[in-house]
């Protein structure tokens, strides 16, 4: 993983919600093709970190670069100018996001959900987009559900459509925000299988998850966060089997039991 220019650089990210500090001085880099898993108790700032990367939250301090491009601002000399709504929207095309609660567009079928971005936002030719969307549905194992509305799909199926929807935009980087936390236990496997396949295809991924098994098997690097800060980072072996920090040890023990 070393040597290549980082895909994403996050430096000293800080985020406050009122008097609550959600992120405090978080710095992380991710290389192309790397799968980074972020674990930690709820309220530790994992999701906020992810949401700051694609500007769903505005940072109070620090900065993010994706593929060398500063996120959210244009630098002119020593001044930073906040980007317009349209420019922020363009920057978001670099990342695909998968939400805990799926957030499929309820008034659209599975297929319509997937083609919406490429057609409406990227203005790509319909026929080409349709063919790709059908291939994506096939890849997540839902070719037969193309005309189903989200309300007619199980949680696991909805999340797989949501992954296909994000992939249809051809992002450089995929962000997963606790993608299996809202699922019934028997449906977790099918979503993880799709994500495993995606990691195998070389996609750069940041995964906020409670699935330690997935982090161990698929992750290249694991980060443990607590109270808005990175406590410990390293290989899955180091963090999950031989944590150095007491807080990491306590968390892993608590999750495994």
């Amino acid at each position, binding site marked *: 993983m070393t040597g290549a220019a980082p895909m994403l650089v996050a430096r000293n990210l800080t985020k406050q919600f009122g008097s609550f500090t959600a992120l405090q001085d978080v710095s992380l880099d991710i290389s192309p093709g790397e799968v980074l898993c972020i674990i930690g108790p709820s309220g530790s700032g994992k999701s906020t970190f992810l949401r700051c990367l*694609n500007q*769903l939250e505005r940072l109070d301090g620090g900065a993010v670069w994706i593929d060398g491009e500063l996120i959210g601002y244009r630098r002119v000399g020593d001044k930073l100018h906040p980007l317009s*709504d*349209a420019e922020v*929207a*363009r920057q*978001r*095309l670099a*990342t*695909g*996001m998968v*939400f805990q*609660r799926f*957030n*499929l*567009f*309820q*008034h*659209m079928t599975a297929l319509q959900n997937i083609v*919406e*971005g490429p057609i*409406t*936002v*990227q203005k790509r030719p319909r026929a080409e987009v349709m063919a790709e969307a059908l291939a994506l549905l096939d890849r997540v194992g839902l070719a037969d559900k193309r005309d189903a*509305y*989200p*309300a*007619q799909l199980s949680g696991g199926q909805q999340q797989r459509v*949501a992954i296909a*929807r*994000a992939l249809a*935009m051809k992002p450089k980087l995929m962000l997963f925000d606790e993608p299996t936390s809202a699922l019934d236990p028997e449906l977790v496997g099918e979503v993880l299988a799709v994500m495993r396949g995606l990691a195998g295809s070389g996609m750069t991924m940041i995964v906020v998850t409670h699935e330690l098994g997935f982090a161990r098997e698929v992750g290249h690097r694991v980060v443990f966060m607590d109270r808005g800060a990175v406590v410990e980072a390293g290989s899955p072996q180091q963090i999950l089997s031989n944590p150095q920090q007491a807080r990491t040890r306590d968390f892993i023990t608590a999750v495994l039991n």
Partner: protein
Amino acid sequence: MQPTVSQSAAPDYDIGKLSIVKPRHYGRWLAAAAILAILLFIVKAFADGQIAWRVVGQFFTAPAILSGLVNTIAMTVCAMALGITLGVIFAVMAMSPNPVLRGTAVLYIWFFRGTPLILQLLLWFNLALVFPRIGIPDVFSIRTVELITPFVATLLGLGINQGAYTAEVVRSGILSVDSGQTEAASAIGMTRLTALRRIVMPQAMRVIIPPVGNEVISMVKLTSIASVIQYSEILRNAQTIYYANNYVIELLFVAAIWYLAVVTVLSIGQHFLERHFGRGQRKTASAQKTGALT
């Protein structure tokens, strides 16, 4: 489980050979009979009363009535179109991060909801008293009395007033859509306005359509107050006729029947619109419907 002493024979658990007696519903028969009697009484009263039904039939399709009907429908369509357009614009403004736009929307809603409609109509109709000529100075101008015809005054009065109410309906519709939908739209690179148009509004429609349908139906009848500023809608034309021939009730009946007819057609249209915008929810919606029927 202790055996009951008093029971001599074991209870008969096989009810397969028994038949179920159909409930009699005496209450329904009683209510039907009572209401039928009252209806018959009313029908007989009107049949014996001094109403020239022949005149109702004769004027039902009179040219003045039909042109009034066309004007009523045209005004309903135009005023609602203006009202919905303004309603959407001001609802979006009211939710904008821009404080100037937000304040303007609040002011608009405050003023037009806060004054009586008939007063607003009279204000528009008498605009010429304030501005004898309207236009761009030195380029183009027109005498206000020529521009503000009864049609234009009614359209402005009803449409702009309607917009203030519809803005609140649209705003509540937009608020009803889960914020996750907007986030997902942002995540695939949509701007705020694109997300509103493609993702939020279509889902908000499910909440917006029933009250707006209600307002369309109100508007059909509300156009009748435009008779005070000489807009020739159906009620005003009916009045003009009965001033001449004195068949007051007959002509009011003619107008009433036409209003009912228009409202009936609109109600049916509303049903199909609601079904269209309920898509994606249909599974749950139809389940609820059957649940309510049983």
